[in-house]
């Protein structure tokens, strides 16, 4: 058992499934010989061969559409979009085909496929390499959208995603690909999808986030603790369908909610969480539901990205405001 980073955990989970399930096949741009531009698939082609870890031509709709065809034949394709910013040519196949095939055939053809994509800002990348557009996928019925926030969750959730009989969009927060290491046992044990993780129990305020922002959110919770504010911290992890019970229970308990997301504010996953709380737990609330998020503007080029993304300070400001609300 070794301490590994989030990206190493992704690699380990992919390797585990390639090893144990002959139906698993990986493909995408540069995933083979080069091992992916972030090295998520490093060494896998060498180990499992060019038939199972395939360098595809450069075409995202094709990548997603191939996954649909292969999944219908009972394979378990795991396709990579090199960056989430380049997934748009593929959404026609993802929204119109992958998400619907089971439904439209009354369960005759199923889509046990995964689409992986690194996403989010903070690594000084060029345009289109830093967006967080998970909300688009979360709005489409028939998909599952999973976002790990740390190495052990990346390992366990990736295994679950590959084994899941339905299409999973697996978004990897690339800013935290390498910032922490976890001891992860490579034992093939999956984590449940559609389940929040409670990172910290608390009674004063509920902080809700997912992906890379869990990092800032957990730091903020610690700082709040030092100020005497006892925050509960929830990692949503599967942002669609959401484990709303855990969230509502916490909101009812603390009566104060602050949602943290990197994506633009409007029409995002945080909006849905706030709306559900406003529908099912509103009368337990002691303060308005706060949202700390990216702005409703284009993700700027990197000179301004720090100013775009939520920081520990912005979370603290909002949490304190919510705490002070009477």
């Amino acid at each position, binding site marked *: 058992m070794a301490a590994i980073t989030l990206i190493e955990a992704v690699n380990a989970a992919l390797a585990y499934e390639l090893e144990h399930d002959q139906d698993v*096949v990986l493909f995408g741009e540069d995933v083979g010989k080069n091992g992916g531009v972030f090295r998520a698939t490093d060494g896998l082609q060498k180990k499992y061969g060019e*038939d199972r870890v395939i360098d*595809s*031509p450069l*075409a995202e*709709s*094709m990548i997603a*559409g*191939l*996954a*649909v*065809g*292969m*999944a*219908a*034949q*009972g*394979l378990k*394709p795991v396709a990579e979009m090199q960056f989430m910013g380049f997934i748009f*040519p593929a959404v*026609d*196949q993802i929204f*119109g*085909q992958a998400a619907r*095939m*089971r*439904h*439209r*055939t*009354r*369960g*005759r*053809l*199923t889509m046990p496929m995964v689409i992986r994509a690194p996403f989010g800002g903070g690594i000084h990348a060029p345009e289109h390499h830093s967006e967080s557009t998970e909300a688009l996928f979360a709005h489409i*019925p*028939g998909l*599952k959208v999973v976002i790990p926030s740390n190495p052990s969750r990346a390992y366990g959730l990736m295994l679950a995603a590959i084994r*899941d*009989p*339905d299409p999973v969009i697996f978004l990897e927060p690339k800013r935290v690909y390498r910032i922490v290491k976890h001891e992860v046992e490579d034992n093939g044990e999956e984590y449940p999808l*559609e389940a929040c993780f409670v990172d910290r129990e608390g009674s004063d305020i509920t902080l809700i986030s997912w992906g890379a922002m869990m990092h800032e959110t957990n730091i903020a919770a610690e700082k709040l603790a030092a100020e005497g504010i006892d925050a509960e911290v929830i990692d949503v992890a599967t942002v669609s*369908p*959401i*484990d*709303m*019970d855990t969230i509502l229970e916490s909101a009812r308990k603390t009566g104060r909610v602050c949602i943290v997301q990197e994506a633009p504010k409007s029409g995002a996953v945080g909006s849905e969480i706030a709306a559900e709380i406003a529908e099912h737990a509103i009368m337990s609330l002691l303060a308005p539901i706060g949202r700390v998020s990216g702005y409703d503007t284009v993700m700027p080029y990197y000179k301004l990205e720090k100013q775009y993304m939520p920081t520990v300070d912005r979370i603290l400001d909002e949490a304190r405001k919510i705490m002070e609300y009477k």
Partner: protein
Amino acid sequence: MTTRTTASFEIKYHQYLDADGKATQELPAFAKDMDKMRSLYRDMALLRAFDAKAYALQRTGKMGTFPASLGQEAIGIGYGDAMTEKDVLVPYYRSTGALLKHGVSMKEILLYWGGNEDGSDYAVAKEDFPICVPIANQIIHCAGVAKAMQMRGEKRAAATEIGEGGTSEGDFYEGINVAGIWNLGCVFMVNNNQWAISVPTEIQTACETYAQKAIAAGIEGVQVDGNDIIAVKQMAEYAFEKARNGGGPTLIEAITYRLCDHTTADDASRYDDPTVKEEAWKNEPMVRLRKYLEANNAWTEVDEDSMKAEIAAEVDSAVKEYEAHPKPGAELMFDHLYAELPEMTKPQREAALALQTKGAK
């Protein structure tokens, strides 16, 4: 290394029977088997009768929008006949002929166009795709299916069909391109019926042929007379054989004419030239095959009448099955969305069922 030719290409056109049912070259063996040819004629007649019935059902409010195959029957029946059970069909909305040939029932097809997903839960053709409505997506699915077959070392082919208008979509090109690179066992049928709803070929492409689109994918592309079922079937058999045996993909442009409206929702008289259409009627595929059969003493007026009666009965019985099929219940909006319905969606299912019960009262 000065100015020189680095690649050259030719597109060939194939025809066996002309509009009068006369052979234009030495016929393939199957064309001399009159039982075979009679049964193909019957398949086309069934398709045409089914289409007419489906039209009538739509017109009387018993079914939704429907795209007929009038004039294009030789295509779906031709390549459908070249398929085996083990091959996989990835149809588009105008693949009725091939679907029927591959074991999908008339009832299923009616259910589909009648707004019921049950129609895609094929009883026989278990691996075939449902009808693809978003144009050109199916081309890539076909490549994906063929890739799965290739990975398993199976001698099977995957076939798909697209309209000539659909060849303008990026997915068409991405799909044939990857089929070329990976040498996939795909048969790509292009139904060139001259129209994409109201848009004629001149507005769809600057190409002289649709077959030449294959050149951009480095794959074989050919043209056939799509009104000549012998040409369609002969070329399809070649392509399927090749696909099943590691020979890679083929694109077949079948040239025909859409003698019907685009769908029941369309009115072709707004854009189609009646004199052109009249001319096209002279080339339609059934008359020439009948002439060929008659010339070979393999078909009579009596055959025609008894076939028509049989077919009418078959179609009617399918329509009865269709009409007797139970209406879908509200639970079907939810029960096949995922393997398991998400917790957060369960209350919605309950609410919908409660409303249904209420509504039923």
